[in-house]
């Protein structure tokens, strides 16, 4: 598993051009430092390096972003530099920098970096309550990487596409059936509401046949054969030639489609077009949804520096992503409406063409048989052709309304009725052909049934099939939605269970909690969160204290980290940036142990400004027995020009006890001995409960803490008995430090090497007298025996009230 080996940061936030670097060599880090000393600057740099995003800066507010605030205030942006090295077991891995795109890295390092981009590994004070305070949809979005239902949601989406296709097809075949039914109703002069069952059509047909002196048909299947017979019979009538022509014309006029279907299609088209126009008015600019989606991905991956919408430099990534998302929604609505428009336009044109064809056929036959133009029909056909020609290009809703007016002016039903009456009048004028007319009427009905009925039946079957498919698809989609919600519910319950387990460990035996996450039945893409307080369920913020909410935030984050670590065991990085500020003293010890124990398989970086937390984490590391895997660092000082400076008593002690000291300048020896003394007195004063002067926003310096320590040390019976001379020696020689290193004063008589070494030797002795080589800890005041100064493992002990020694030979007898 890859682990960070070195983090090199230059000119980032509070870190100046000289670092210092953080050397990890694959180990974890616990970092102590007062507020404003650069701890979070390292975290910001690390987050930016791994994700090209910084949650402490890129918070969606104008002017607050990485580009504005990422660079050190005295440096130029081009001098900002972040680099990291990694180790994988015993082998080193190529370094990374903040400039090279993440996507350029390949192999295990590339996988690790991509996981870092996708995972939540960093918790800050600012993001502690993000999941708790999020709206249900935002919470779903934040948790969605854990759902990972890519394949299933694609399946669900494809089912919905098939359903849409089915709905369009159903609409199309339903309209086709209506056209066929209208033709039959007109043939039999029926009202539009009459249901056309086979029995009714058969009965109506048989009435015509009866009038023509023909036997009843038992089924409609015999219509074609009987029509052929009647056609033959009609040819035997004298003077019938004209009548035949008129009959033929009458048949073709009867087969003219009704205009109602075409009109309804045009009305729907106008409605859709008007809706599209409204949508397009609100759409400031049209974009390809695909381009926008790619743009989003590129912004998230940090590949894109300019906004794909306005091509300006990306200042606020979150706001830009939100704008793109809004554009995608707008564009998607427009695209869907356009798709409906295309579908409806096709329906309208098909209907118009069908109508035009039937009119053209009537015009043609009329002209051929009767040698003249059918005035009304020709005029109607001319208008229909004009509409067809106009609507071949895109029209506005207003223009389409004009087309509707033209269509209404055609008044086709009246024209057809007049034409039929005209032909029937001519037939009647021929005289003596009543029998022929009856035969003709039967012939027309048979012809219409023979042609239309099979088509109508096929259409009705198609409607039934498509309708059945639609019902099944509706059920499948409903089950798919339920299955997705159930799965998400299972996942969020798993997350909530893990968070509750952690929360319970931090707050045992309390009537606060647990929390529950649930997928509501309403809408899509929401996750609700409720907390329990003395049995009452509500939004956690209603009853939980600030401390409880903070703990809940930590528990949720740690639960997510654990879940992701299970899913992606190759990426185990945990960064907690000073998030324990409101955990009260009763829970600190437990929290420190829990984090170290639960995440000992991770490389963790934990920062704190609180020395008590630092100590508790040290104890937890020792107790869990991973001391060799963890580095402890303290930032002792910070200046704008120099940045953070480590407080490292180990390094100063190593120098002062090495042979290097013989070659060093007296000023260096004195300065480093002074730093060692200052560094060791800080934990000693904390742990021995020695009051030191309060310095608001200033570091506590040696001059302020030595006098109270000296006083306490001389007053402590056990310590004073053993080290009184040592304390007095340091007290008389610490002028050496003041004269040299710490304040760099010019002195008329420079400190000599023997003077510096004498001071250094005394400081080293005090170091050895107060810091245990067994547990690596400085001595602390213990409660029992009260006032004793002991190290944690007991190797060093100073009794406040030593037992009286019993002189030899004077014991009790």
């Amino acid at each position: 598993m890859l682990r960070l080996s070195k983090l090199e940061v230059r000119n980032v936030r509070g870190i100046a051009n000289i670092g210092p670097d953080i050397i990890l060599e694959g180990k974890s880090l616990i970092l102590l430092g007062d507020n404003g000393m650069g701890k979070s600057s390292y975290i910001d740099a690390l987050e930016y390096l791994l994700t090209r995003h910084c949650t402490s800066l890129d918070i969606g507010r104008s002017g607050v972003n990485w580009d504005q605030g990422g660079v050190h205030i005295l440096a130029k942006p081009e001098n900002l530099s972040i680099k990291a090295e990694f180790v994988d077991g015993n082998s080193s891995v190529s370094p990374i920098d903040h400039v090279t795109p993440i996507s350029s890295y390949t192999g295990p390092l590339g996988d690790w970096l991509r996981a870092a981009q996708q995972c939540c590994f960093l918790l800050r004070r600012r993001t502690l309550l993000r999941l708790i305070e999020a709206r249900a949809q935002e919470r779903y979005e934040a948790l969605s990487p854990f759902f990972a239902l890519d394949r299933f949601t694609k399946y669900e989406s494809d089912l919905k596409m098939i359903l849409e296709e089915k709905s369009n097809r159903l609409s199309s075949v339903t309209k086709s059936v209506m056209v066929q039914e209208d033709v039959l109703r007109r043939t039999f002069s029926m009202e539009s509401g009459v249901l056309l069952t086979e029995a009714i059509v058969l009965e109506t047909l048989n009435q015509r046949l009866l009038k023509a002196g023909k036997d009843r048909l038992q089924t409609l299947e015999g219509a074609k054969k009987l029509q052929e017979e009647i056609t033959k019979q009609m040819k035997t009538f004298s003077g019938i030639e004209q009548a035949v022509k008129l009959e033929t014309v009458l048949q073709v006029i009867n087969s003219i489609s009704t205009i109602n279907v075409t009109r309804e299609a045009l009305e729907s088209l106008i409605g859709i077009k008007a809706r599209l126009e409204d949508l397009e008015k609100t759409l400031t600019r049209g974009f390809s949804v695909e381009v926008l989606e790619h743009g989003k991905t590129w912004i998230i991956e940090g590949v894109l520096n300019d906004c794909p919408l306005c091509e300006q430099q990306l200042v606020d990534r979150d706001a830009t992503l939100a704008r793109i998302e809004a554009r995608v929604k707008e564009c998607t609505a427009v695209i869907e409406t356009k798709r409906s428009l295309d579908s409806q336009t096709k329906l309208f044109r098909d209907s118009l063409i069908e109508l035009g064809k039937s009119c053209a056929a009537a015009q043609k036959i009329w002209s051929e048989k009767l040698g003249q133009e059918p005035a009304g029909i020709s005029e109607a056909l001319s208008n229909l052709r004009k509409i067809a020609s106009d609507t071949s290009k895109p029209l506005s809703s207003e223009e389409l309304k004009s087309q509707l007016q033209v269509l209404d002016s055609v008044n086709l039903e009246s024209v057809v009725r007049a034409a039929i009456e005209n032909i029937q009048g001519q037939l009647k004028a021929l005289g003596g052909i009543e029998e022929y007319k009856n035969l003709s009427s039967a012939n027309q009905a048979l012809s219409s049934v023979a042609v239309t009925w099979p088509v109508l039946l096929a259409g009705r079957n198609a409607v039934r099939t498509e309708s059945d498919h639609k019902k099944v698809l509706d059920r499948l989609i409903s089950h798919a939605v339920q299955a997705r919600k159930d799965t998400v519910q299972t996942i969020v319950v798993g997350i909530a269970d893990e968070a509750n387990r952690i929360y319970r460990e931090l707050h045992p035996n309390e009537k606060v909690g647990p929390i529950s996450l649930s997928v509501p039945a309403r809408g899509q893409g929401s996750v609700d969160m409720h907390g329990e307080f003395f049995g009452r369920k509500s939004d956690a913020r209603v009853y939980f204290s600030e401390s409880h909410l903070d703990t809940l935030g930590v528990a949720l984050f740690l639960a997510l980290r654990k879940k992701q670590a299970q899913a992606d065991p190759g990426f185990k990085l945990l960064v907690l940036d000073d998030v324990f500020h409101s955990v009260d003293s009763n829970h600190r010890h437990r929290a420190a142990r829990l984090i170290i124990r639960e995440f000992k398989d991770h490389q963790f970086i934990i920062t704190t400004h609180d020395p008590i937390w630092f100590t508790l984490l040290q104890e937890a590391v020792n107790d869990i027995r991973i001391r060799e895997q963890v580095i402890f660092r303290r930032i002792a000082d910070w200046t704008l020009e120099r940045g953070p400076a480590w407080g490292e008593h180990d390094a100063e002690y190593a120098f002062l006890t090495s042979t290097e000291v013989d070659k060093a300048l007296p000023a260096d020896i004195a300065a480093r001995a002074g730093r060692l003394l200052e560094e060791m007195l800080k934990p000693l004063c904390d742990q021995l409960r020695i009051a030191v002067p309060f310095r608001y926003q200033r570091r506590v310096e040696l001059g302020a803490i030595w006098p109270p320590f000296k006083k306490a040390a001389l007053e402590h019976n056990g310590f004073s008995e053993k080290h009184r001379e040592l304390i007095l020696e340091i007290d008389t020689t610490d002028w050496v430090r003041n004269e040299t290193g710490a304040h760099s004063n010019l002195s008329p008589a420079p400190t000599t090497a023997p003077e510096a070494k004498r001071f250094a030797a005394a400081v080293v002795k005090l170091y050895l007298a107060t810091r245990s080589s067994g547990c690596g800890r400085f001595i602390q005041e213990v409660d029992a025996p009260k006032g004793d100064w002991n190290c944690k493992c007991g190797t060093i002990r100073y009794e406040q009230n030593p037992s009286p020694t019993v002189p030899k030979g004077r014991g009790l007898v």
Partner: protein
Amino acid sequence: MTDNPTALASRESSDTNKMAFARFKLLIQADSLLSDEIKRAVSADCSVPDPIPVELKKAFQVNDAASK
């Protein structure tokens, strides 16, 4: 929290997708209004990039390259 929650999908997807498909198929099997043909078609393998099985497309007479 790093707020870049695009897709952890590639690593965890198989498990959660399988969970959702299994749940879906259970709901389908328990639905008495669905025919055996549909139940069989739904049970076919759903693979990437076209997760709708050919059998299901045939059941709905969806015309596309996969079902021809």
